[in-house]
């Protein structure tokens, strides 16, 4: 742990992440204005005491919108990566442990997904509007009803984004976990667990996966930054979080039209994205180095 704290860049990234988390959690208390409150007379005001980061085309406070946007971005980042880690770990563990045709089938599927440029895949899936399709399953009482109840509680667009980004980014984790399991399963402690009478499922979950988690942690940390970036890209293209809900990507998108007259509209969300992704990368690299040094230190 001390080694991790000695890495100044990682600590800096960590501090940024803590600040972001605090901002996201206490968004209502921290934002000076209502992020959705339209106030046309105050449109496109430059930064001032009343509006620290200026206002947008509809006179909404940019700072407040950025603060609420933090919630959306972090939420999407973490949950999308959570989905990717779960799916990737499961696929990678099965492929690595069972080998043979299971491995061949799963890995060729991974290769297929990897061979399609992510952004096109995302655009294609989002264009089909899976959340709407799910709601239309209303004919099937159970699924339709569940979907309706679920989407009343949370914004379907955001849920869809998390799911789509997560389900399109698990392939790296799957390859990583597969490689780890391939080398771990030959280790003697796996045989030792089997001679104790442990089942395959138990060997995988209790003995193999905990040993394979270190690189997954690194990849997940880096992945959160990537997922936030993907969300911003999609929102910027108008396919992500829909206005009026603020997200860094769509604030950037709205600011694009006023780029010549209102620089503050694009600069601030741009910097937010930059520093957040940077922070996740620094922390991820820090953890990678820390783990590397630790396993080099042990025999």
């Amino acid at each position, binding site marked *: 742990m001390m080694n991790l704290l000695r890495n100044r860049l990682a600590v800096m990234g960590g501090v940024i992440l803590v600040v972001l988390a605090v901002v996201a959690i206490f968004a209502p208390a921290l934002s000076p204005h209502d992020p959705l409150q339209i106030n046309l007379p105050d449109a496109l005001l430059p930064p001032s005491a009343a509006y620290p980061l200026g206002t947008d085309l509809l006179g909404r406070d940019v700072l407040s919108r950025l603060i609420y946007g933090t919630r959306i971005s972090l939420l999407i980042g973490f949950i999308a990566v959570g989905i990717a880690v779960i799916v990737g770990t499961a696929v990678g563990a099965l492929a690595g442990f069972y080998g043979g045709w299971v491995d061949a089938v799963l890995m060729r599927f991974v290769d297929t997904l990897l061979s399609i440029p992510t952004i096109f895949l995302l655009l294609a899936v989002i264009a089909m509007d899976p959340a709407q399709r799910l709601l239309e399953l209303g004919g099937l009482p159970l699924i339709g009803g569940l979907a309706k109840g679920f989407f009343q509680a949370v914004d379907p667009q955001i849920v869809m984004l998390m799911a789509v980004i997560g389900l399109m980014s698990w392939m790296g984790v799957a390859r990583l976990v597969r490689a780890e399991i391939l080398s771990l399963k030959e280790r*003697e402690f796996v045989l*030792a667990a089997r001679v*104790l009478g*442990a*089942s395959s499922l138990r060997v995988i979950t*209790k003995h193999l996966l905990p040993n394979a988690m270190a690189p997954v942690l690194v990849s997940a940390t880096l992945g959160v930054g990537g997922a936030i970036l993907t969300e911003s890209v999609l929102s910027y293209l108008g396919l992500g979080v829909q206005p009026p809900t603020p997200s860094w990507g769509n604030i950037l998108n709205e600011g694009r039209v006023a780029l010549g007259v209102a620089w503050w509209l694009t600069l601030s969300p741009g910097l937010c994205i930059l520093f957040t992704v940077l922070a996740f990368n620094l922390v991820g690299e820090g953890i990678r180095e820390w783990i590397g040094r630790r396993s080099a230190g042990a025999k």
Partner: protein
Amino acid sequence: MPLLTVEDLTVTYRHHGTSVRAVDGISFTIGSGEILALVGESGSGKSSAALALAKLLPSPPAEVSGQVMMERVHPHTNIFGVGVNLLSASEEALRAIRGGKIAYVFQDPATSLNPVLTIGEQLREAIELHTGARGEEATRVVVEWLQRVGITSAKERLSAYPHEFSVGMQQRVCLAMAMATQPSLLIADEPTTALDVTIQVQILRLMRDLQRAFRLSVLLISHDLTVVERIAHRVAVMSQGKLVEIGPVAQVLGHPVHPCTKALLACRSAVALRRAGRADG
């Protein structure tokens, strides 16, 4: 009556059309409370045979044939009735037998313990898989076994990780893990090879004490005849997958018949001579 009767055990490894017969039709028995040593040069099929007994070799590439009959040993539990052929038993039955009736200890304790689980967790796993004990009860059994294999302040050590232990202590933990479910057969595959000489003696003594206390049958795999001489009752010699000689230790090592046994004995005398020479100088 023998605890384990092995008949015509054959292990063939097949890989891309080529096949190697690692164990070639060996037959032997292990009596209840007996220590049988299986010796032979490396590559003679000792370890393959040992793993094949509980169907632990991955298949493919390994193909195992023959019969491994295990007698019932605990009349009050009588799980398996009389005579189970381990090679045709179901995977589920085998899981109950592995660890429960047949326990293994391997050569290198440093790699047979899982580096990310504490000693306590690993020992508890063995107990929870095979006995009804859970929670506090399981912990109590774990501590008891750690003490029995000579680990001091066992309670505090439960939360230690394997790398915090010396190799000798790790092997004690492995022994505790194997013994905690009170199996009737312990298969020890070169249990002292990775240890230095003084620790070797301690571990062997511990194994012999446990064997006597629990009337345990032991299949001891080794290429070190000094070890075999010290604790085994009978010895079986393997060479190129075949069992070439079997009998009481004194007879086989005292009056070796097969050239392989003689060769093994010759190595030992060479080492012994060199050791003696070094002691003199």
